[in-house]
């Protein structure tokens, strides 16, 4: 283990009682109000239920078996899963490239950057209940201004049925989601850029390093932890995304399942399904999702740790 010599060990350690005092308030609240209910919710997946909340019996992994053996889960689950992965890949690339680009450019701007930061974050402030609806209005091939503008510019061929074609519906979903969330990486990267001591860049400039090179070799390595944080949160957000796909594609991932994701599938099989054992099967689905995200997040954290160690 690469113990950095700069950090005195007295600073890195604290008496157990102090550690407890620092951590306990958060942990107690977290464990009682969040962890405990969530653990019991995961436990629901091991039981058979009747009419939502009536426990019938412990049925081991039967609910999971249903998901892996019965039509339509055998087709719908992998399909939804792939869509989640595509959303993750798309948002990851866009947030970390466009988000980082915007943050770096804003950082150079000086005080005007505040205006831009506010503007870029406005999409996040609007209730998610209506963000999807707003874009449905804007992108409507019949009434929407986006296609009207494209027509006016003579770009008729680009004026497609954005949310009505399987080929465009998912990319649009990804773009709108990035649009909605980009304020977060912009702000977070902005804060991290501000925390980089200017001497580092000055030193590099004096040595004649150009803009890109300075960014690549000075700035980027120092941003690694924050990029990691954003990436993991992006992963979680993409895997659990519900409101936007539901607004665009309804309960079935319209058109023809092109925007179906795991949370929408969960919604379909949970309480409104009319199925008596809805709680068992939907909990099993959520448990699988949880385990997958947990694995992904832990893996992601390990990668980031490795990067951080390399840097220190």
């Amino acid at each position, binding site marked *: 283990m690469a113990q950095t010599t700069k950090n005195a060990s007295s600073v890195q350690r604290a008496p157990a009682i102090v550690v407890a005092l620092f951590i306990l308030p958060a942990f107690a609240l977290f464990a009682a109000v969040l962890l405990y209910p969530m653990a019991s919710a995961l436990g629901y997946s091991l039981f058979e239920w009747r009419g939502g909340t009536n426990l019938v019996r412990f049925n081991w992994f039967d609910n999971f078996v249903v998901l892996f053996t019965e039509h339509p889960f055998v087709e719908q689950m992998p399909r939804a899963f792939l869509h989640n992965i595509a959303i993750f890949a798309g948002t990851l690339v866009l947030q970390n490239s466009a988000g980082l680009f915007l943050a770096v450019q804003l950082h150079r701007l000086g005080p005007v950057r505040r205006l831009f930061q506010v503007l*870029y974050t406005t999409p996040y402030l609007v209730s998610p209940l209506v963000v999807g609806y707003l874009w449905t209005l804007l992108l409507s091939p019949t009434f929407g201004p986006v296609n009207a503008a494209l027509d006016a510019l003579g770009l008729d061929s680009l004026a497609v049925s954005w949310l009505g074609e399987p080929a465009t519906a998912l990319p649009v979903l990804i773009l709108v989601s990035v649009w909605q969330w980009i304020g977060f990486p912009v702000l977070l990267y902005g804060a991290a850029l501000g925390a980089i001591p200017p001497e580092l860049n000055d030193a590099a400039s004096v040595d004649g390093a150009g803009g890109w090179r300075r960014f690549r070799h000075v700035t980027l390595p120092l941003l690694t932890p924050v990029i990691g944080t954003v990436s993991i*949160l992006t992963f979680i957000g993409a895997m659990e995304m519900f409101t936007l796909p539901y607004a665009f594609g309804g309960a079935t991932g319209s058109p023809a399942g092109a925007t179906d994701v795991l949370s929408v599938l969960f919604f379909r099989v949970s309480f409104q399904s009319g199925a008596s054992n809805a709680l068992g099967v939907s909990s099993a689905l959520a448990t699988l999702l949880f385990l997958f995200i*947990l694995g992904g997040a832990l893996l992601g954290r390990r990668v980031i740790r490795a990067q951080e160690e390399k840097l220190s």
Partner: protein
Amino acid sequence: MTLTLDTVERAPGGATAPARRRRGRWNAQAVVITTVLWLYAAVCVLPLLTMILNSFRTHLQIATDPWPIPTDPTLENYVSAWADASFSRYALNSILITVSSVAISTAVSLPAAYALARWRFRGRDALEGLFMSGLLIPFMLAILPMFYLMDWLRLIDSPLSLILIYSANGIPFSVFVLVSFFRQLPGELEEAAFLDGGNHFTVFLRVMVPLVRPAVATVVVFRFVPIWNDFLMPLVMLRSRDNYTLGVGLTTFFGEYQNDWASLFAGLVITTLPLLVLFILATRQIIQGLTAGIGK
């Protein structure tokens, strides 16, 4: 430090000539970049503008032509939104619930994140992983057990149930973000503070927390917004209309077959404005935090 100097190649033979050429290109580049920044800003305010414009129009106008200038603007929607949904009452509840939840979750997350980021102790990684797992579960799944828990605590129809849930729900995110910021800080600062006679508590409060103020502001904003806009948890936990929040108020415009978009947009403008104000204040905090920060 050494890493930086090693990897950056020295420009041979004086930096003046290439620098000038670079500056000329830089101007053209700056124009392009500024244009891009403004264009993207325009794309971002589009929804806000759509919302505001439509809040002055009738349902039929919105449906047939969603994005023009209002021809004969009406304030009718605001009148009905304010009256039908008792927004004044809901606004007070929203402020109470959101402010206390964010305050509590940030207050408890800061020391926890600090301890996880800066100290070595047994079980640290496991604990951090446990906190992180709180981010991973679809919230919809936990609704039923949370309801049972609050029912057991006799908190159904009490705003306290929401404050507890939102504070707890904010912890994983806040800890996760704050840990990465605390970890980024150089260790010399703590050392110096200890040499000046500080203890763990004073070093944390007086030295370390001010340094992560921009991150705290970011966490506050990004926790504040979803709580402010949430409608599902209040509907699950609350019973009397007097306790409803703005987010729930908005749902009164959603019908079974038809949504009252005109009033909804007016309601949205009313609920989003406070967020915008908060956010402008918070970004000032972020800037101040930055300038007051590491620049020693």
